[in-house]
């Protein structure tokens, strides 16, 4: 069955109009929890993008085989499996990131973004559309987290991706790497995002 949706729109919506973080408020826990540095935000974003992509693919492929009543448990098993794969791969090959992201890696499984897309999109659309949807939404998520992470890191540690641009003993806005700073930074970034997205 061919989908008649515009794939370009399908992709772009995830970045601006339906940005998971700024517009749909999905996946807030990792958004606030691991963005104290740009690298962490980027890493978490990519890990989530991977799970989102894989789960959208699998759900889209097997959707006709899953009876409607058990679809949520089925989605959960599929998503949780990919999350576990990510957990193990990170611990084996990128232990630094594994340590940094900590408990938020297994929490990818309850990221409402992934279950939400599986339920609302992948279970109803063909493979190509689901892949593009995942890529768009995932990219929107990655961008949001990386920007938030970079903002907090710049204000809070005077560096970006670990490259310091202030002198060693400079007084930085430590608040921004602390929990309150996450809320405050996201608040103002949302305002800026809203301003910018209205223009586009």
């Amino acid at each position, binding site marked *: 069955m061919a989908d008649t949706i515009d794939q370009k729109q399908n992709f772009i919506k995830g970045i601006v109009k339906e940005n998971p973080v700024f517009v749909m*408020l*999905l996946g*807030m*826990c990792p*958004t*606030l*929890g691991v963005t104290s540095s740009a690298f962490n935000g980027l890493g978490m974003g990519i890990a989530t993008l991977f799970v989102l992509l894989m789960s959208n693919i699998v759900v889209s492929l097997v959707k006709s085989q899953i009876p409607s009543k058990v679809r*949520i*448990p089925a989605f*959960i*098993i599929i998503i*949780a*499996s990919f*999350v*576990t794969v990510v*957990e*193990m791969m990170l611990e084996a090959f990128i232990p630094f990131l594994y340590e940094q992201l900590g*408990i938020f890696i*297994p*929490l990818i*499984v*309850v*990221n*409402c973004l992934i*279950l939400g897309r599986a339920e609302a999109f992948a279970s109803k659309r063909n493979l190509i559309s689901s892949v593009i949807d995942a890529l768009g939404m995932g990219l929107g998520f990655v961008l949001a987290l990386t920007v938030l992470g970079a903002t907090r890191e710049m204000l809070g540690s005077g560096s970006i991706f670990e490259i310091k641009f202030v002198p060693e003993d400079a007084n930085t806005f430590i*608040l921004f790497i*602390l*929990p*309150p*700073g*996450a*809320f*405050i930074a*996201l*608040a*103002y970034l*949302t*305002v800026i995002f*809203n*301003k910018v997205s209205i223009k586009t």
Partner: protein
Amino acid sequence: MDYILILIAAVFVNNIVLSQFLGICPFLGVSNKVSTSIGMSGAVLFVMTIATMATYLLYQYILVPMGLDYLRTITFILVIAALVQMVEIILKRVSPPLYQALGVFLPLITTNCAVLGVAILALGLENGSLLKSVFFAVANSIGFALALIVFASIREQLELANIPEKMKGVPINLLVAGLLSLAFLGFTGLV
């Protein structure tokens, strides 16, 4: 003695929402009225406690002895999802009024990162035991309730305030949450 420390830490110092960032979705989504916040907190208390008990036993007596601790994430979330379904069914039959009060929130709790998060955190407790883990869960749900209810009371007042157009909705809520988190930061060093 340990227990008092756990309680103070979970409710104030390491508040599950305001400093550990777990449970943000319901925190932002359900907190527009104090009454719904109380309902949600009750449901969370119920599910979090039972879930932590179940997952702790599952982990200690099945997963670890069989060397399957990498299946932790997937089994925990399935246990939580199943539990939520069961709780809904049992509640409907045993106490319809309670079901009326909490019922709406139960499905939302499956994807509440706080429940899965606490279940996993409970595994790392010093000298852990079933009793300690359950107490940890109860303490954290009290912390969740505190954050949620305080936030909701502020939001109810916020409705009447004069907020700049661009800040309305999500931004101002996040800002308030930030200030609340800042206030709780003052508890650091208490334990």
